[in-house]
């Protein structure tokens, strides 16, 4: 029967669109990668540049902030740095657990302006890694980065922001499940 056929097709289409909703998640990541939407950046990448490429000076601003209820102290060793494109640099970030309990923190990066994100290569970083710190413990971790010489000319400064989240509970839940 005709009606039955069209009904079945429409039901299939419905499920397809439900799946498409979920497919938007990875599609969005790809989209972000291409357009630099939201300054979304991925983990470390390994990049080196030929020293011959002409370089220019770019000002990097480091921004650290804590998400709600995250009591740690979290700072870069200096708020700003002038760098040459195409060269390796290091910036130290210090995490201190100021509480009297062991905790787990996780820092999430973001680059601004967003379209500069794909020119900001972090060759070594703690992005998305969990930091376990005992009560009162402090740790300093460097972020190693290179600014792509292809960075558009009208971008003369980039901001690298890190937001520190308290993931102690999530991590505990995850452990409990496994």
């Amino acid at each position: 029967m005709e009606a039955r056929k069209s009904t079945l097709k429409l039901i299939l289409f419905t499920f397809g669109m439900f799946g498409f909703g979920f497919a938007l998640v990875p599609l969005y990541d790809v989209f972000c990668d291409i357009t630099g939407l939201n300054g979304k950046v991925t983990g470390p990448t390994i990049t080196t540049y030929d020293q011959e490429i002409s370089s220019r000076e770019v000002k990097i601003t480091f921004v650290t902030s804590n998400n709600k209820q995250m009591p740690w102290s979290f700072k870069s060793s200096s708020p700003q740095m002038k760098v040459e494109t195409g060269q390796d640099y290091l910036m130290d970030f210090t995490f201190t657990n100021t509480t009297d309990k062991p905790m787990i923190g996780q820092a999430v990066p973001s680059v601004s302006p967003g379209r500069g994100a794909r020119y900001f290569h972090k060759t070594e970083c703690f992005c998305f890694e969990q930091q376990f710190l005992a009560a009162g413990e402090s740790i300093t971790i460097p972020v190693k980065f290179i600014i792509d010489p292809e960075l558009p000319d009208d971008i003369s400064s980039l901001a690298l922001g890190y937001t520190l989240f308290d993931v102690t509970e999530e991590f505990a839940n995850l452990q409990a499940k496994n």
Partner: protein
Amino acid sequence: MLRAIKYSLSLVAALTANLSFGAWDDLNMSPGATQLSQEIFGLHMTVFYVCLAIGIAVLLAMAFILFKYRKKEGVKPADFDDSTALEITWTVLFALILIVLAVPATSVMIKAYDDQEGDINILITGHQWKWQYEYIEDEVGFFSNLSTSLDKRNNLAPKDENYLLEVDEPLVIPTNTRVRFLITANDVIHSWWVPDFAIKQDAIPGFVNTGWTYVNEPGVFRGQCTELCGQYHGYMPIVVKAVSPEEYSTFINEKKEAKIQQALLTEKLWSTSELMEIGEATYQKNCVACHQVGGRGIPPVFPSLVGSEIVMRNKARHIEILMEGVQGAAMASYAEQLTEVEIAAVITYTRQAWGNAETGDGKIVIPKEILDYKNNKL
């Protein structure tokens, strides 16, 4: 038509409630205080007039048709139902109007998206329900809270001009300087909007957005959070004070000074000898005229500090006297004249010197205690 509606509405309201519909800026966008905001205002007015013209044309045409072609005896309706030429004409017309609008819109958009670096950078963090401002280069910062009292909000006190648009500590920026804002949030999504700068940028937890401004004239600019962020979303205003670069550097220096003081008070570990040294100097400068070099004073007008009960055994009262002064006596309050460090040091000095340490409890006072005293009192 729109204007006619507007006027008739005003009339209705004025007649019914005796309200005042005064200023033009109660009706329209503010041109703002920056070049960008003025360009956006210009764009807004252009688009508005185009839309107004279209609206008036359509509504007038409609009014004409409704009147002219109302049903009349003996008049037969036409029965055409198509005209390809006509339809193509107005489709092309619409497209042209849109192109006319898109050109200036694109050029203003490009100006708004200027990614040059700022002379100063300010990190703005949205919290439930307050804003935090940090001057990145100078490493100073503070929170900015609504300062309108609960009494006003609950209609127990009269409301004034800046009701719900006032804060305890405004963001201060210099004029004639490119100020870049880095905007993020601590918990949920907020949005930082100052209409006079034409900046409305969402503050998103985990992400840093940017905006920038360049203000020519000093002034106070007010805005509000514009993304629903929980129950007190309506109560987190923004106040920005633009001041001359000189005033701005004074402001920053004060902030830095305050920060150093704060660090001294709360973080430094003080030794007795350090306090004694500052305390002796402070004593020589401020106390010696009355209490004399040896601390014996000129009783009964200026009591002796040597062997005094308060100086030897009652630390709390000792602090209180320095902070509040003594009613009806020559002793004044030093809370405003001396820093916390100086007050703590001079108290420590008098408790230690002249053999007081040996006969009394010899307790020292650290600057943090003075700060705590101040904070508890406030």
